[in-house]
């Protein structure tokens, strides 16, 4: 008898301790995990004071990893459904990839209903987060409008103008030849850059980059032929430095002015200023891409994993809304991290009108803002990464070994047709 009572008392005591431990956690404290990469982690952290004011009881933990580590970790977490964060930052390429599967919550449904905010985002960025079935799997937070950065000193020395560069693709290449002749500087880092942008021009509705919506392969279409021809012309006239982006030779080329132009996202101006080539301050200018091409280079999104803890999802959505739909947060990230806002209502802010010292006092943000409105989204196919590899391989053969362009594209076509439906 005593024994039973004793045991009962002991159990009660344990229960009490357990409840004491559990109660405050259930009532007051909730911790949201945000997984991000630089500099998105900084942007989230700088939003935390404002978040604390709104939700003093909800802690936010930012898990930061390097860019590729982050995306590998997210892929693993999604495939195994463990260690999933409540909010996941994703670069645009991965949004496209993850949107094919069902690992991310469809934000167009209850309780999120993101469609009601659709008109507040830059249209192409919102489109990029929408998959074929109409599900919206992520919220755009920053975008990378494409721009043509060029060295004004090199152009002046060669006696050519910005208009010569941007009039048409042919005029861009012809101007490059003049620059090379007069200054010895290359027009671009790699002929591949030229191909990459020209295949993104003139995409018809319903077409993706390499495949259309019925998985028909598009690599023999005119935009590919033109892209290959232009790239070949660049190589034939020795107008490219034949260096890959982010290599030592690439940044050295910018420092020394041996690479005179670069087609890129607007954010590169910030990188050049901060670490790639700070000494070239004032020598760069930004223009729209040649021949009225408008393209996106990168962009960041926030998503909620489907298998993330359900109890946290409402708060996770609150946090995403604070980061993406608040004018102050978006502009703050723009000022501190060069994260070009995806929220249209920030576009009237005076910050856009400020001159950029690195670009010689140019008000370049106005041009980027105009570009952002004109970019169209390209629908994503799950074999895009493979197609990219195949097309680059064929381009190498054309550039280095003089392979016939028609043949090269036909070879790429037949290789991709086998993959299209996998």
């Amino acid at each position, binding site marked *: 008898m005593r024994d039973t009572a004793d045991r009962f008392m002991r159990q009660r005591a344990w229960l009490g301790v357990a409840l004491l431990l559990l109660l405050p956690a259930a009532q007051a404290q909730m911790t949201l995990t945000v997984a991000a990469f630089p500099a998105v982690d900084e942007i989230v952290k700088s939003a935390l004071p404002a978040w604390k004011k709104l939700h003093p009881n909800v802690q936010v933990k930012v898990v930061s990893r390097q860019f590729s580590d982050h995306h590998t970790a997210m892929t693993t977490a999604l495939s195994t459904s463990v260690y999933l964060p409540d909010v996941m930052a994703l670069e645009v390429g991965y949004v496209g990839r993850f949107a094919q*599967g069902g*690992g991310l919550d469809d934000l167009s449904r209850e309780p999120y209903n993101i469609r009601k905010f659709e008109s507040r985002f830059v249209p192409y960025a919102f489109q990029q987060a929408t998959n074929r079935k109409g599900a919206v799997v992520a919220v755009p937070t920053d975008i990378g409008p494409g721009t043509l950065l060029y060295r004004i000193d090199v152009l002046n020395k060669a006696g050519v103008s910005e208009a010569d560069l941007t009039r048409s693709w042919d005029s861009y290449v012809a101007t490059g030849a003049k620059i090379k002749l007069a200054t010895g500087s290359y027009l671009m880092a790699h002929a591949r850059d030229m191909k990459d942008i020209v295949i993104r021009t003139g995409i018809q509705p319903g077409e993706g980059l390499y495949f259309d919506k019925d998985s028909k392969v598009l690599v023999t279409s005119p935009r590919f032929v033109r892209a290959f021809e232009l790239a070949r012309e660049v190589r034939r006239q020795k107008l490219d430095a034949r260096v890959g982006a982010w290599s030592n030779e690439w940044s050295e080329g910018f420092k020394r002015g041996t690479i005179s132009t670069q087609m890129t996202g607007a954010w590169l101006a910030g990188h050049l200023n901060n670490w790639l080539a700070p000494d070239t301050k004032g020598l760069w200018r930004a223009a729209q891409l040649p021949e009225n091409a408008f393209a996106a280079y990168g962009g960041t999104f926030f998503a909620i994993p489907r298998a993330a803890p359900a109890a946290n999802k409402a708060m996770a959505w609150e946090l995403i809304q604070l980061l993406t739909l608040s004018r102050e947060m978006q502009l703050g990230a723009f000022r501190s991290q060069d994260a070009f806002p995806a929220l249209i209502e920030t576009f009237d802010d005076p910050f856009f009108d400020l001159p950029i010292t690195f670009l010689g006092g140019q008000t370049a943000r106005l041009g980027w803002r105009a570009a952002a409105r004109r970019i169209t989204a390209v629908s994503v196919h799950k074999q895009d990464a493979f197609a990219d590899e195949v097309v680059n391989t064929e381009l190498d053969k054309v550039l280095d070994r003089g392979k016939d362009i028609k043949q090269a594209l036909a070879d790429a076509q037949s290789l991709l047709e*086998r993959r299209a439906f996998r």
Partner: protein
Amino acid sequence: MKLPAALRLSPEWAPFVFLSPFVLLFAVFGVFPLAFSLYLAFQTWEPTSGLAAMEFVGLDNFAFALQDEWFWKSLKNTGWLAVASGVPQHLVAIPLACFIHSSFKGLRNAVVGAYFMPYITSTVAIAILFSSLFSTDFGLINVGLQALAQLPVIGGLFPANPVDWLNAPENIKPAISMIVFWRYVGFNVVLYLAALQTIPNDIYEAATMDGAGRLQQFFYITLPSLKPMIFFGVTLSLIGGLQLFEEPFILTGGRGGSDQSGMTTAIYLYRMAFDFNDFGAASAMSWLLFILVAILTWLTNRAFRPRGPSA
């Protein structure tokens, strides 16, 4: 001090307890991945949708792999690299081991250590080192070649212009083979040295008495006695060569190089899974590669099997 009876390990359980750390680790990191990849080889899976998204597709992945142009291309690359890096390893290691065995006394361990160094050096360090050695404009290898090209008479044998080692498709494979050869030749030297020490000296003495020269001794005594070790060494090179991954992966930035000419099968199936999101086909390819390794190992075994009772 004596442990209480409850804590004492009974003799029946002791072997299991002592084995359990290995067995557990092996089950988690050895058996499970193997079984999982075999299971995956028969599924189609969009990995980011979670484990529930798998769908059984029978032999589809194997059929796809066997008809895939790039799979065959990667097999050809792997074969090329295995032969070009594997055969010279042994052709150099055997005479080298004999030379070290007969000519170095006090310094022997230091010499062997020097040859063995690359084998225990981190692959990443090696790749960084060789990336700079192979650099087109500033690399030591090209500088050396150009200096040789200046020499009279033999200068014509060497390229006068800098060689683009890591970007031109025709140069990637020789560059990778050179590194693999350099890295594993020392390992083989150690193997053969160990085998040489087991050959009794009497046989050589008897052969000398009979008037056999050094070359005759090498071909009629040393080489036949080394046969079991050659079998072992060749098998290791074969398996290692067919699974070659690290060196070409790092040298080509993880992409397999221009025109995929440095893309081994191991790299391709890694890319299939992690870059192209096709875990099913990647698993099928890894099992096809395993079958190939098994067949070739069996053939090597047959080729080295003693023939008749006299051998």
